């Protein structure tokens, strides 16, 4: 039987299965760490016990609403359960058989239970392309991917010429989702035009930004889409070998990728003469050992070659001389995940989504001081406000929004005044930030922006490969200055020193890591310079976060002398006796943890 007929058969069989009643349990990293794997087993056991055969329980990829995990969705009704524990299995199965819901597990919005997942505010402003199959299929079954048109795109591509494929990607306007936003079609064209006996297609799955996990979720929830996209890229540029460079810290992703590759090989989708054409393609995994710099393309290639993960100077560019000195393309996971859909639905379809220069959607890992922590995929051009307030559910505890950091340690902060900026590559750059890989960290009024800059600098200092002095020593010196500022030892001239260092590090560093490392400092200086000045000249942290600059004080006038604060202080720093005068905090002992502030029944303790 021809491979395409076989796929057709699988599709027919499994698309029926997909329409049947299925209990989908999220088995992404987040939910698994809350025992969703046990939950799945319990549900399966329960079904077995009751001898129910027309309902299956399946593991699936990330639904994105990680704050509410573990998540269970029951099809076809799309019933959405949140924060489910393994003990809830029996109740879920019983309710399902009765045709009802377990009310206590349903999400609530404005005191109303929401039964279907797409009706949740978190989801209804999203539009899922890259994450399309996450939560819908069992990522460990190739048949389910085939049932949702999987591997049809590569079949279609093999009927086209490589130039036609590249034109379609170019026309779609797809740009790299890993950071710089380089046009994908252009990248492929460069590599196609490089003459060589051997070329490589690489996938950057070395997601390293703190708090970012969209690539992990795609690999865990829909690994075949990445494999298929790499085959398409291979055909387009004339390569028959691919490497996926994935972090060893992503064990579930590694496991599912390995299963997916094996399944694709078994079916004949990877290997020689695919779909009876002359196109052959092999794919291998390479595990990264957790160095952030290996997400930089040339360092990644060094690492695949077994060398130390250090960036190489460019030129030569990878499209000319990349992996093993051969023409190479490298795209990240999310970029690839868009490719099969563009091939199937057409460049025009994709091109209509988004803004003038930024097409399609972008997945963000929403984190920090935000109600709905999780993964969101939105069309390019939505505003920060929409993400934070509508999808993210706003800032918890009634606090005010202060800023959001995009682009992780390479990006910058966006203050409230730019809340309405549409999120696309150019707009973010124009306000001193960047798209980056998609980390979006929201900060409330209690966040000190100097301390934030220090946090990111600590990260880059730790992750610098050490090859060039501006990054190796420069970021270290910047961190030392920031540290002394947050400790109340800042000096006049420190801000200028930071600015000078930042500019020179940007101009002189060898790779993107160093060139962007000063961004968090520059953008916080741009929007929150007054906070730096308050630290240096007034020895005061306006947000009250820097411990050396903050004192916790009890208002002696208002203290009711109840002693609750003293009893709760973890370091016994509060002195006084009940009803014998106001209590007092010994500043030498106080660690500024804030426990007394929250425990005081009369709210008379505060940070000053």
């Amino acid at each position, binding site marked *: 039987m021809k491979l395409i007929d076989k796929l057709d058969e699988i599709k027919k069989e499994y698309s029926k299965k997909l329409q049947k009643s299925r209990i989908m349990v999220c088995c992404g990293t987040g939910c698994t760490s809350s025992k969703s794997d046990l939950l799945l087993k319990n549900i399966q056991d329960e079904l077995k016990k009751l001898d129910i055969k027309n309902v299956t329980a399946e593991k699936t990829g990330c639904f994105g609403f990680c704050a509410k995990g573990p998540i269970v969705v029951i099809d076809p009704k799309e019933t959405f359960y949140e924060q489910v524990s393994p003990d809830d299995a029996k109740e879920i199965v019983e309710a399902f058989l009765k045709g009802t819901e377990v009310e206590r597990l349903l999400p609530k919005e404005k005191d109303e239970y929401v039964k279907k997942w797409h009706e949740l505010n978190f989801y209804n402003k999203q539009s899922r392309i890259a994450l399309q199959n996450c939560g819908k299929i069992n990522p460990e079954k190739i048949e389910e991917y085939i049932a949702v048109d999987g591997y049809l795109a590569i079949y279609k591509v093999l009927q086209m010429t490589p130039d036609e494929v590249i034109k379609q990607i170019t026309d779609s306007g797809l740009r790299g989702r890993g950071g710089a936003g380089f046009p994908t079609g252009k990248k492929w064209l460069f590599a196609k035009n490089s003459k060589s006996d051997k070329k490589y297609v690489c996938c950057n799955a070395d997601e390293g930004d703190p708090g970012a996990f969209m690539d992990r979720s795609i690999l865990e929830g829909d690994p075949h889409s990445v494999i298929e996209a790499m085959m398409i890229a291979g055909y387009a540029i004339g390569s028959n070998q691919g490497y996926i460079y994935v972090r060893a810290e992503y064990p579930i992703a590694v496991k599912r990728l390995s299963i997916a590759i094996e399944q694709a090989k078994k079916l004949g989708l990877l290997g020689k003469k695919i779909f009876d054409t002359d196109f052959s393609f092999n794919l291998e995994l390479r595990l990264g050992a957790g160095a952030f710099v290996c997400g930089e393309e040339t360092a990644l290639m060094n690492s695949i070659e077994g060398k130390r993960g250090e960036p190489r100077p460019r030129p030569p560019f990878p499209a000319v001389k990349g992996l093993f000195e051969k023409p190479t393309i490298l795209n990240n996971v999310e970029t690839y995940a868009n490719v099969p859909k563009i091939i199937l639905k057409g460049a025009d379809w994709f091109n209509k989504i988004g803004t003038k220069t930024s097409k399609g959607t972008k997945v963000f890992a929403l984190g920090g001081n935000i109600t709905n922590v999780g993964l969101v995929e939105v069309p390019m051009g939505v505003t920060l406000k929409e993400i934070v307030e509508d999808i993210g559910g706003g800032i918890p505890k009634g606090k005010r929004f202060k800023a959001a950091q995009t682009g992780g340690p390479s990006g910058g902060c966006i203050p409230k005044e730019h809340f309405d900026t549409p999120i696309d590559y150019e707009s973010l750059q124009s306000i001193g930030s960047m798209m980056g890989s998609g980390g979006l960290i929201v900060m409330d009024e209690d966040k000190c922006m100097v301390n934030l800059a220090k946090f990111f600098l600590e990260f880059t200092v730790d992750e610098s490969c*050490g090859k*060039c002095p501006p990054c190796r020593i420069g970021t270290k010196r910047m961190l030392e200055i920031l540290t002394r500022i947050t400790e109340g030892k800042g000096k006049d001239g420190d801000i200028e020193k930071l600015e000078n260092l930042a500019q020179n590090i940007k101009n002189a560093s060898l790779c993107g890591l160093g060139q962007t490392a000063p961004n968090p400092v520059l953008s916080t200086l741009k929007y929150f310079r007054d906070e730096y000045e308050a630290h240096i000249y007034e020895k005061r942290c306006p947000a009250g976060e820097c411990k050396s600059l903050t004192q916790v004080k009890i208002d002696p006038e208002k203290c009711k002398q109840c002693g609750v604060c003293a009893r709760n202080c973890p370091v016994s720093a509060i002195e006084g006796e009940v009803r014998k005068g106001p209590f007092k905090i010994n500043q030498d002992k106080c660690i500024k943890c804030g426990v007394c502030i929250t425990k005081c029944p009369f709210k008379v303790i505060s940070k000053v």
Partner: protein
Amino acid sequence: MSNKKMITLTIDSKPVTVEEGTTILEAARKINIDIPTLCFLKDINEVGNCRMCLVEIEGVKGYKASCVYPAEDGMVVRTNTKDLIDTKRTILQLILSAHEKKCLTCVRNTNCRLQDLAKKFQIDELEFEGELPKADLDDSSECIVRNTAKCILCKRCVNVCKHVQGVAAISTINRGFKSKIGPALDVGMRNSTCVGCGQCVIHCPVGALTEKSNVKELKEMLNNKDKVVIIQTAPAVRATIGEEFGMPIGTLATNKMVTALKALGFDKVFDTDLGADVTIMEEATEFIDRLKNNRNLPMITSCSSGWITFAEKFYPELLNHLSSTKSPMEILGTLIKTYYAKTQGIDPKNIYSVALMPCSAKKAEIIRDELKLEGNIQAVDNVVTTREMARLLKEANIDLSLLDESEFDNPLGLATGAGHIFGTTGGVMEAVLRSVSYLLDKTELKNVEFKAVRGTKGIKEAKIEIQGKTHYIAVSQGLANASKILDDIKNNKSKYSFIEIMTCPGGCINGGGQPLVSDFKASKIDYKDLRAKALYKADKNSKYRCSHQNPQVKELYEKFLGKPNSKKAHELLHTHYNKQDTYVIEDK
């Protein structure tokens, strides 16, 4: 004429035409614009690490490292705008902030690339203070001392060790500010694959890698009236020591050197080159014997001590191919403590035997158990490099360049041209070839110059006729080249009968103990060639060109050793080799 495309670009408003593929740095040097560098080493370390060579290219975003950026036709490059210089000054300030600035007490004081740049950029005040990298002083090796507090992580050492020597004893450990250069697993140089060649030392731009010095003991011995302090000088030192005293590269300073050493207080100054002549008598005889018996061929020379360590660490299965003849230094050391001691009636224990060498590996050779003499004494007690000796002479107010000439002492002071050329690649091979036919059937050659084995090529090959039979011979310099030949022997693919292996590129004239030549100077002149020419000149000027003609050597055999490869010669002048383990981690 190369058929490569020529391109023209402008650097600091000056046009320059170069071959396509030339870097901006090389193009700039061509028109005498000296873009500062710290890490760049032509063909060895072209990595763009140090950022001191950054330039501004019109139409290109950000500054680019000129050492790795290819020049393009029509390109407009600037190397000296104010912003660019300011950026480089900041980088330099950063490097200085992470460098142990004990310049006054540093062996590289006034001969340091970082110091030069600090001066060039007029650093009159240090801008950044802060944490220094963790100081890690490794003196486990007999040859090389490693001090990470001075290291600027340019990685010249790493890449010369890896690519030129194929040894890869050191690499970057850790990352970011904690990065340091050292042997894997932090085992210390002694326990690593290091062969002690010192190529890392001569390429280090600062004082992070230095030779291990024992001049303190030497100074004490020179002042000890009970000791007869004798020095021997290696072939290559006479061609380089003048450089340390301002003489042009390639100056032959043999007899001024002898005067200087006597002025410093040595009782006798002997010539290692005579040791080299004896080496030839033994080694050529050994070769003839192996050829006759078709045993352990190809035979490989054994005078370069870095190579011996390399063989013991990397190719222990090939040790039987090495000539058993000791190195010229060890032969002369042995003769000093046996032959000379006997004729003079001196107790060998009262002789302090010093060797002035171009080499750091020799420092490890002298303590080898296999080379100990009767009474468990060393043949050579102290090895001093060319650089160390220059420092000693300067300390004693002796300016070698201004001295009169004098002759080596007898009976170990007369050498042939064959002995002199031991100091350059191909020299040992040529010297052997000059004597083989004589040793076989007393034939004297009309032409003693074998030009095929001379020159800078990594592996040189020649065909020779010995008693009507054709033999292939090879000469290699730099251990990475040696590996190619050795791998062939391992795989039974070698066609050679005799191989000369020199550890250092160029041979001893470019040894790890030799005067330093900046990479900028090296880009302008072929210093190895100039030094080699000095030795070939010494050869040409010699009364005797072949080792077997040396009258002092003849006398030595007549009076003391008997015949080459005699029982006594074997006892005194031959040795053996043993496998050396690396990365042995002891349980603590």
